[in-house]
């Protein structure tokens, strides 16, 4: 599973440009599902047919990044964020464009406290505008560049949010032995700018039950904001975040299945942030929805950390839902 995770987190897929991730995931799962389609917004929708309940799982493929807004005469790039980037975590970091061009993030003089994104720039090593334009254009997107690190039980990488969710679904699809349910595994686009892919995917699928698989923050680091989720304490079953209040039936289902299958789990109350479930649950006349969260430290930085045990627990919980008759829905 580590090699699957490494492969997905090292892929290039800023919001709106998820194709490379799509093709990788498709290769992993195409022979295990009945149908793989890509819709108008680029969502990869894998369908495993069944006569039971229609379940939509959703993990997003996109990662936060930047977009070039201006190239100056000296070849420096100005940029804007794509998704929620903390400017301080970017300083001294590198970005990578689709064509492999690497850039370093620098800033204008001034107090760090007053640093905003419009005072920052990207240096791609070009001596002037003409040289820069041979490699990069205004409107080009890039990702935060950082390699995967295997720390043993714990893994660090950029874009764990939400390639680790994608990995959970891929692994669940590959391990799935039997299910009577009508299963849709959606690898969604554009989550980081407002849950946009999941919204149209859910409209097309119109499921009985919607479940997002995404990362959540933890409160287990020194002087962390108070939050009762820790790395290594199991799959986090979401109670609420800013986008959704998990449907009580969905939350209870997850707790019931986790207990019955001895899957290590914890409850999650996230004060800010949202997941695809926020879009799914408001689709058409409403869809009971919830989220399985992978606890993750340093979310939205280039070094997001997860625990392999938690990831395994999340895979098991997805599988338990697939196998359950889901009589209450």
């Amino acid at each position, binding site marked *: 599973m580590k090699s699957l995770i490494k492969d997905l987190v090292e892929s290039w897929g800023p*919001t*709106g*440009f998820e194709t490379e991730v799509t093709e990788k995931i498709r290769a992993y799962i195409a022979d295990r599902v009945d149908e793989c389609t890509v*819709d*108008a*917004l680029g*969502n990869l929708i894998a369908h495993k047919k069944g006569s039971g309940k229609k379940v939509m799982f959703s993990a997003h493929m996109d990662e936060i990044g930047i*977009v070039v*807004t*201006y190239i*100056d005469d000296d070849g420096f790039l*100005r940029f*804007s*964020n*794509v998704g929620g980037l903390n400017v301080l975590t970017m300083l001294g970091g590198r970005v990578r464009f689709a064509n492999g061009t690497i850039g370093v993030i620098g800033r204008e003089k001034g107090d760090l406290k007053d640093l905003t994104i*419009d005072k920052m720039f990207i240096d791609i090593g070009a001596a002037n505008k003409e040289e820069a334009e041979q490699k990069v*254009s*205004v*409107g080009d*997107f890039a990702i935060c560049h950082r390699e995967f690190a295997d720390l043993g039980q714990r893994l660090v990488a950029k874009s764990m949010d939400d390639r680790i969710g994608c990995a959970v679904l891929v692994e669940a699809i590959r391990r799935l032995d039997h299910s009577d349910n009508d299963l849709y595994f959606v690898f969604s686009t*554009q989550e980081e*700018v407002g849950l*946009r*892919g999941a*919204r*149209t*995917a859910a*409209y*097309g699928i119109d499921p009985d039950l919607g479940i997002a698989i995404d990362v959540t923050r933890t409160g287990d680091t020194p002087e962390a904001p108070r939050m009762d989720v820790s790395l290594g304490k199991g799959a986090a079953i979401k109670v609420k975040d800013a986008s959704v209040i998990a449907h009580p039936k969905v939350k209870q289902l997850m707790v019931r299945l986790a207990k019955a299958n001895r899957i290590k789990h914890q409850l999650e109350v996230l004060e800010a942030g949202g997941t695809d479930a926020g879009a799914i649950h408001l689709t058409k006349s409403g869809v009971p929805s919830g989220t399985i969260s992978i606890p993750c430290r340093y979310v939205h930085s280039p070094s997001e950390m997860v625990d392999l045990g938690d990831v395994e627990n999340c895979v098991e919980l997805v599988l338990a839902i697939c196998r359950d008759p889901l009589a209450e829905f």
Partner: protein
Amino acid sequence: MLLKRLSEACGGPGQEGEVRDLIRSEVKDLVDQATTDALGNLITVKNGTKAGPKVMIAAHMDEVALMIMSIEKSGLLKFHPIGGIDPRVLVAKTVVVGKNRVPGVIGSKPIHLQRPEERRKALGVEELYIDIGAAKKEEAERLVNIGDLAYFTTEFATIGPDKFKGKALDDRVGCAMLIDVLRDNYQIPVYGAFTVQEEVGLRGAGTAAYQIQPDLALVLEGTTAADVPETPKHKHATTVGKGPCLTVMDSSVIPDPRLVAKLMQLAHKHNIPVQYRRNTAGGTDAGKIQQTGTGIPVAVIALPCRYIHSPVAIGSQTDYDNAVKLVKVFLRSLEEEGGDQ
């Protein structure tokens, strides 16, 4: 001149009737069908001869305006901006209020009576009022109602060798461009949607797209240009006179990269100057259209306008002509290629 009539027409969010009537009379002989939906969107159809791809082109009819919130005992009107208006640009402007265009002035305490600290700061909306010359509340009530919208009185005019100035260029330039596009006939079905309530949250476009169910959509907009002194070049966003703008991302949408690339390619092929919009703030109808149903590929073509969302903005006639040209060559290319987008 069509753009002059559109600019000088009054239609704030939810009260687009006057603009809609003007557009309807302008397009009625150009389209096969023109209907007004429940939200007030004017949806026009040119059937074409081929089945598809079905293209929706949207431009919003509404403009930012001021809503009358209360009538004071003195006969002065308190108001609130509808849509994003910088309150600093309001003081001492002339306005017209409501359907009957009752003339008024946005007043404030004269400079002689202001304390030194008051002179140093801009006046907020709560310190401003509209004076329609009524001596008391009853007199004012005979002329205006709570909920009426007040509009700027800017006269549209061409200025300089290539520019025009006027109010509501956001998005009457889009409406005018769309009408000009509808003057030609196309083999593919083209739906021209003149939408409502964009300025208060892209409200009309979603329901319009829902009923049209297009294969793809273009949004025609007036967008901000900050190509003025004191603004560093990397914050200009767009430049007036350098061609229509293609959006790669704003706060509402990341347009379909395939459509953006195709428009860029067509522009180069036909020697039409274009520029990317170099800013990611703001939103357009494209945000709602893209999210409709199972999703719709969208792109945005915007005309750079200086001083947007103020009583007067400035745009370029050459940019306008190039934007119309770009939309037309895009539609022609779809005719040739069929519905593979």
